[in-house]
Structure formats: structure tokens, C-alpha cells
């Protein structure tokens, strides 16, 4: 048979319903050819993972069909096909069921019919590729998260698959591990189908995009076309251009203006620094197995300060956060609000310090949103009236009004994250800790979280790998490495220091480069089509002549120049919402634009 002319996968009218009759996929028509690098994109809950599971027969269509090399994926053919199609699950613990890393990596090759020696040899080779050969006989549960991800990929690569399907391969990985993953995928010569909200990563490894919305395939375009078309991206909740915007001006801290003397988190102006909120002196912590998680950490944080905690996976960030929450006690001195934290009073720190975990599922366990928010408020001993008031306020704050009776476990990823945040905000802690607030969120969810966090005033610690959030939300950055604080500097200085990444093994450069490339594509695209533009030039409203930035639609097939001394204009894309004079278009006015008017 000649497979070269035939698509590798053909999907015809594919529908899928879950047993509870939830319609997950509708009328999917697509083909994937050998060697394609396809990105499956869409919002949380759009059906990406459900579709991906059809590619290796983990789910079967309710109606319609999926053909692999011209044959339906069922029976013995399915068994055979699965040995050619590798599927990387989002959580590596789902995939690493072997007793040792080597045993796990050899599992697939053994099922392909290789002898033990051959399978182990194949497994060893791939472990070498993912740089885990020195841990071949270690149990998977003793690996770090990044190592687990790479071990799971090794298990697939050992099968020498023709197709690799990856579900959120970079979720929760630091930038170094992400770059390692990218290198591995660049070296893969087969067909790649990748699901991710990390569009910069997808831009680097995929050439084609299948955009899903509510279970329907809306677009099948080249990836560069998708990222350049912001209007389309926004429609699918994928527009991540907010990350390219220039830094927004920060409100000044001013406690007197708010009258907020308690230091509790709230919306409004920043409280003025008044006292030292946190002070750690020579603080160290050892785990039970003797390994040192944090070593001789010295840290001072003022009330109202917003601080970022950066570091590779395993640098000690989470342990430090546990110490600050009073969950772990090591050696050294910890003072909160100028009082020493002892074994006794550390149990009451929860009243002052709130945390939103990386995985919101870890802190949502109640039967309804109302119960979930009320949980902490009850522990604070608040009256029912006060509880209801606070609940109403935080639900409004995070955009979950009307969700009171919904079951948390049935909410989407973005909604759950906002609910977790609401639960903590309702308790009005003096210090809010956010552990990877964007983990697993689609760009729209990220933007929503960012908008909420931008409005918060109060002390904040943000542990993240996301430099954009560091820039937007914090003033000071601590770089952690091997349990210690390597650098303590302003976030502005941190972000401008290009060489800093190499200090703690992090590699941010590829993200920055890819971001710049996408931004350039978007600008070129916008200037070739009718587009909204922000201009600042003289214009008239009747007899009144004035100047202010305003938007209007235009098209030009030439390189636009705003200033005499610049041949090209280089402002980042702006939004319609940035129009400072909203009714401008409706008013009777005359204006023109062009380089000559700028003179």
C-alpha cells in the first residue's frame, strides 16, 4: 500500500458524547498527514483532549469515523496502531506506572514484541536522550516533576512512534525544562499532535493549528496565520497578545487614601509600607530524609510589598512558601508582623496568610461554591450576615456571580482557579501567596486572573515561571537556586538582565524571541488588513480642535510612518478598549492621518 499519498489520520463527521450525554465533539472533519506538526488549540473544555484520545483509540466516536492509514481504529488493528502512536498525558504520574524508570520506559517496547534485552537497550537509549540514564533504576515517585515529564516522554520515544500526541507537555515546567522538551521535539521526525495553552511553545514546534470551540473544529490553518489573526484568536479565547503590551502604570501606594490600616487585601490604592511583615533570619529546612530544601535564607518583606519568587523546579520555592504559611518549621528565626513565629502561634498564621495552590483541585473539596467560600469564613467565626456579604463581594470580584450553588468539581479550569482565589480573598489575609497562578489556564483565563490580581492591593508573594506576571504584578524579585536566595533585586532589573537566566539554570531567551517573532507577525498582519489603530494627531469636532490618542479603522499597504525620523513605526498592538474617548466614532468630526500630519 502506498501511504505517502494517503492521509495518516482521516476524521469524517466525528461526533462524541460522554456517557452522561454531554456532547464533547461535533462533526469533526480533518486530515493529518505524515510529518505534520499540528497544534490542537482552544479554550479549557473545548474538546481538545477528547479529540486527541480518538487519535489512538482511547475513545471511540459516537458517530462518524476516524481512520488511521485508511483503516478504522478498532480490534486488533487498534492494538497494533497504539504501538505506533505515543500519547503523553498531562500528569506524568498517570503514565509512569512502572516500578523503576527503566522498567517503565521498556514497557512499550516489550509490548511491541521486543525481547527483554532489546527493550531495555531501547529504553536506555531514550533515557540517555532525555538525560535520565543516571536514574534508570530509581522509582518514578522519587523523581522531580520535570524528571517525571521527561521519563514519561522517554517511555514513548523508546517505542519509536510514528505519531506523538502530547497533552500539555510544558504544564508546570520551568523554562529550562521547557527548552529541553522543545529540543527533544525538534529532534522528533514523525507526526506531532500537540495540545497546549502555551502558544509560544506551540509556535516553536507546530506548523499547523486546529482550533476547537465548544467541540467544533472552527479553523484548520497554519499556526503563523492563527497567531497573527488576533480577532480570531480572541474569539476562541486564545489571544495572548496582552502579554506583549507595554507595562501598565502602577498605582502609587497610599494607605491614607484608603483608610485601610489593617493591611488586609482589598481592591483600591496600594497601602503605604508601614512595617516589616515578614522577616526570616538564617532560616533552613531539612526534609525527613536529610535533604536540605532551603538553606540560610534571609528575607525581609514590608507590608504592602509585592514580591516574585523565581527559580527552577526543586529550587525550594514551595518549601519556603510552606514555611511562611507556618506549615513547616525549620531552624532559624521567622518573624511575622514583628512577632516571632513559634510552634504554638504558627497554627494561627492561616488567619493572616492565604495561599492559592498551583492545582486548584487541592483546595476545593466542598459540595458547592457557597460551601467552599463559607468554609474559611466559618473558621474565622464570622456571622452568617458577614459571611454572605463577603461571599457576594468576592464572587463579584472574581466574576463568578450566580455560581453559588454550582459544584466546584464541575467548573472549568479557569473558573476553579478564580473560585480558589475567591475562597482566599474572602478571608482578607494580610499576605496573599500565589503558586503558579496561570498553571493549566487558557489565555483568556490568564487574562481574567491577571485583571483580578492587578486590582488587588496588599502584600503579595508570587511563585511563578511566568515572567509576564512577574512584570505585571510585582516590584521585587527573589531568584532561588538550590534552596538559597541567589539574587534579591527589583523586578525591573531582573527582567532587564538578560544574562540572569543562566545563573540558576533557567532559560527565558527562547520565549522572549518567540514572543517578539509573533508580535512582529501580528503587526505585519494588522497593517495589511483593515485594522484599528491608535493615533495621536490634531483633529476637529465642529469648531473645537484638539489632540488625543484615538482609534479608527484604516488600511494601508505601505510601511506606516508616524514620525519624521522613523521609517517604520514600532508600537505594540493596542486594544479597542484603550480608546480614551469611547463615543468618538459616533461624533460628528473630520480627521485625517498620515505621516504628513505629524509634522
Amino acid at each position, binding site marked *: 500500500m502506498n501511504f505517502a499519498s494517503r492521509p495518516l489520520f482521516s476524521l469524517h463527521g466525528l461526533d462524541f458524547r460522554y456517557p452522561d450525554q454531554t456532547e464533547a465533539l461535533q462533526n469533526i472533519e480533518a486530515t493529518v498527514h505524515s510529518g505534520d506538526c499540528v497544534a490542537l488549540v482552544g479554550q479549557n473544555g473545548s474538546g481538545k483532549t477528547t479529540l486527541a484520545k480518538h487519535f489512538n483509540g482511547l475513545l471511540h466516536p459516537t458517530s462518524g469515523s476516524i481512520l488511521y492509514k485508511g483503516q478504522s481504529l478498532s480490534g486488533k488493528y487498534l492494538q497494533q496502531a497504539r504501538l505506533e502512536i505515543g500519547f503523553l498525558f498531562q500528569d506524568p504520574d498517570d503514565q509512569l506506572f512502572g516500578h523503576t524508570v527503566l522498567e517503565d520506559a521498556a*514497557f512499550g517496547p516489550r509490548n511491541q514484541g521486543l525481547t527483554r534485552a532489546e527493550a531495555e537497550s531501547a529504553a536506555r537509549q531514550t533515557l540517555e536522550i532525555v538525560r535520565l540514564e543516571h536514574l534508570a533504576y530509581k522509582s518514578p515517585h522519587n523523581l522531580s516533576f520535570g524528571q517525571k515529564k521527561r521519563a514519561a516522554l522517554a*517511555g514513548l520515544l523508546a517505542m519509536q512512534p510514528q505519531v506523538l500526541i502530547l497533552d500539555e507537555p510544558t504544564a508546570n515546567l520551568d523554562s529550562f525544562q521547557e527548552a529541553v522538551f522543545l529540543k527533544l521535539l525538534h529532534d522528533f521526525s514523525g507526526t506531532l499532535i500537540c495540545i497546549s495553552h502555551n502558544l509560544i511553545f506551540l509556535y516553536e514546534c507546530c506548523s499547523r493549528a486546529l482550533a476547537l470551540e465548544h467541540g467544533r473544529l472552527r479553523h484548520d490553518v497554519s499556526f503563523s496565520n492563527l497567531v497573527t489573526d488576533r480577532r480570531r484568536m480572541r474569539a476562541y479565547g486564545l489571544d495572548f497578545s496582552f502579554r506583549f503590551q507595554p507595562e501598565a502604570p502602577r498605582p502609587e501606594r497610599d494607605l491614607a487614601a484608603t483608610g485601610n490600616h489593617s493591611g488586609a487585601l482589598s481592591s483600591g490604592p496600594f497601602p503605604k509600607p508601614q512595617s516589616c511583615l515578614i522577616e526570616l533570619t538564617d532560616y533552613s529546612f531539612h526534609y525527613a530524609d536529610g535533604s536540605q530544601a532551603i538553606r540560610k535564607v534571609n528575607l525581609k518583606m514590608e507590608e504592602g510589598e509585592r514580591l516574585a519568587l523565581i527559580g527552577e523546579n526543586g529550587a525550594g520555592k514551595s518549601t519556603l512558601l510552606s514555611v511562611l504559611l507556618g506549615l513547616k518549621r525549620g531552624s532559624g528565626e521567622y518573624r511575622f508582623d514583628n512577632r516571632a513565629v513559634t510552634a504554638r502561634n504558627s497554627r494561627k498564621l492561616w488567619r493572616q*496568610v492565604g495561599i492559592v495552590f498551583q492545582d486548584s483541585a487541592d483546595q476545593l473539596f466542598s459540595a458547592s461554591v457557597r460551601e467552599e467560600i463559607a468554609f474559611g469564613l466559618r473558621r474565622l467565626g464570622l456571622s452568617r450576615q458577614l459571611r454572605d456579604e463577603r461571599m457576594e463581594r468576592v464572587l463579584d470580584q472574581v466574576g463568578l456571580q450566580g455560581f453559588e450553588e454550582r459544584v466546584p468539581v464541575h467548573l472549568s479550569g479557569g473558573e476553579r482557579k478564580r473560585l480558589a482565589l475567591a475562597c482566599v480573598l474572602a478571608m482578607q489575609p494580610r499576605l496573599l501567596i500565589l503558586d503558579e497562578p496561570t498553571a493549566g489556564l487558557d489565555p483568556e483565563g490568564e487574562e481574567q486572573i491577571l485583571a483580578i490580581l492587578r486590582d488587588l492591593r496588599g502584600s503579595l508573594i508570587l511563585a511563578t515561571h511566568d515572567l509576564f506576571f512577574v512584570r505585571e504584578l510585582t516590584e521585587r524579585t527573589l531568584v532561588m537556586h538550590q534552596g538559597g536566595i541567589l539574587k534579591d533585586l527589583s523586578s525591573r532589573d531582573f527582567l532587564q538582565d538578560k544574562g540572569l537566566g543562566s545563573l540558576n539554570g533557567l532559560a527565558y531567551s527562547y520565549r522572549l524571541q518567540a514572543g517578539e517573532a509573533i508580535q512582529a507577525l501580528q503587526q505585519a498582519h494588522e497593517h495589511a488588513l483593515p485594522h484599528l489603530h491608535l493615533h495621536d494627531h490634531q483633529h476637529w469636532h465642529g469648531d473645537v480642535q484638539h489632540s488625543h490618542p484615538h482609534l479608527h479603522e484604516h488600511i494601508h499597504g505601505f510601511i506606516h510612518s508616524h514620525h519624521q525620523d522613523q521609517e517604520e513605526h514600532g508600537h505594540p498592538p493596542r486594544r479597542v478598549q484603550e480608546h480614551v474617548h469611547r463615543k468618538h466614532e459616533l461624533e460628528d468630526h473630520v480627521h485625517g492621518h498620515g505621516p504628513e500630519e505629524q509634522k
Partner: protein
Amino acid sequence: MPDAVSSSLPLWQILLLIVFLLLALAAASQALRCLFRGQSSEEDRDWSVPPLEASKGRSFFHSWDVRCKIIALVGFSFLVVSLDHLSLAFGALTVSMVALIAARIPFSRALMRLTAVAAFVALLLVIMPVTVPVHPGDRLVVLTEKQWLVFNLRGLDLALTIGAKAMAVALLMEPLLGTAPLPITLHGLSRLGVPKLFGQMVLLSHRYLYVFQEEAGRMATGMRVRGFQRSSGLSNLRVFGSFLGMLFIRSFERTERVFSAMQARGYHGAFPEPETKTLSCIDVLLAVLWLLAGTCLVLADRLMQ
């Protein structure tokens, strides 16, 4: 008639003695745990070398055929459990300790295992002497003037016998389970006729126990940071129920995902079999000797009656 020995110890002193004894045992157990907690020989291991190769020539237990090892040590354990006399129970304990030394198991690991049964043994030592029924010929120590608290030496003898047997069996588990990787031991079991599915279930349970433990730990932390404190109130029971329910849902979803991941890599009912060595005459001979030693202990025990 039982032999009675009177003592004029007042009740408060006896209670104090018991409390002191229990506290001393608890402190000793805790001290041992703390002492050996940081000593992890596993961390120093070279993980690029297979466990069997890493332990090659370490002891005959490491190279012993796993089927013979299971039959010999499990059989010996059953024989030890049937012993009635203290002296022979201590004899069995000695054999276990010799096996432990021969298997070159780290002393700290053996002690950690012993501390796990120490509480059970301590409870027996405290309760049995004062609760066993008095038989003719029993030696009794009357601790109070009004003779309501009687310390029966036969009870102490029984408690010590049970304790010694429990410790002998617990110690034998180290040479049995600690000298071969778990998949090989389970494969040995399946070759002895235990259903393969049982081995797969144990293996997966062993792997995912840690994952579920971590998940439960993170959820418990999530509750603690919002003010949850353990108590027996009705509202807490409700919260605890929600916690267990959510843990169950998450575990159930995880098992579905794990099964999907197994299917995606070609699983259709059986795990690939691990490497096994061929059975030799020495393996069989060693197993027979072990069982003979156990049988001798039982025979001696019966003859002493």
C-alpha cells in the same frame, strides 16, 4: 492452687510504673526513628545500576531463587507462629536475627520495622499479665493489699512468647522483601500459582499509594491553610466526609487515566515479565534446610509439653 507472692505496692505507684514503662517505650521508639531518619543509604546509591547487580555477592539471600525464598521464609514463619514455649520463640528470634545479619540488611531498617510492632508488643506486655485467667500452678504477684490487681507470671510468659514470635516474623520480612525488587518477588509469587492479576494489583498499589498519599497531603494542607483543625465536632465530620469524597473522586479519575495510559502503550492484560534466574539445586537445598530448621523448632516445642 496458684503460688502467690504478695507485694505492698500502692496503686498509684503501679499506675505510675505502667505509665513510665509505656512512655519509655514510646520515647525509645521515637528516638530510634529520629536517629535513623536522616540515614538514607538509598540516596547514596548509584541508580544507573540494576538492584540485583548492585547487590551482587552481597548475601545468599540476594542470589537465592525468589520462589524458594518465599516458600522457605513464609513456611518458616508459619512454623514459628505455632510455637508455644518462650525459649523456642527466642530461638526463632535468634534465627531471624542471624538471617538479618547474613542478608546484610542495614540495622536501621530492621529497627524501624521493629518499632512498627513495638507498640503491639508493649500493649501485650502490659495487658496480658493482669488479664489472663488464673490456672492451677500459676505464679501470681499480688500487687495491692486487697488482691484485686494480680500480676500473673504465666501471662507475662505468654506475652513475651507472642512478642518474640511477632518480632521473629517481622524481622524475617526484611530478608524476604528487602533482598529482591518487588516485581521479582511478585513474579515469584505468580510462578508459585498466585494469580498474576494479584501481583499486578499489588505492584500498581505500591506505585500509586505514594501518589494518593501526596494528593491527600496536599488536600489536607489546603484545608489547614483555611483554618481546619482536627477535632471531633459534627461540622468537622462533615468536612472530613467531603475530603474523603473528593479524594475518592480524584483517585477514581486517576485510576481511569492510568488504565488509559497503560492501554495507550499496548497493555492488554499482562505486564512484561521481569528477569528471573534459573532454579538450582542449592536454592532448593537451602529452602529445605530452612523448613527443616522450623520443623525442628516445632518438634522441640511439642516435646517440651
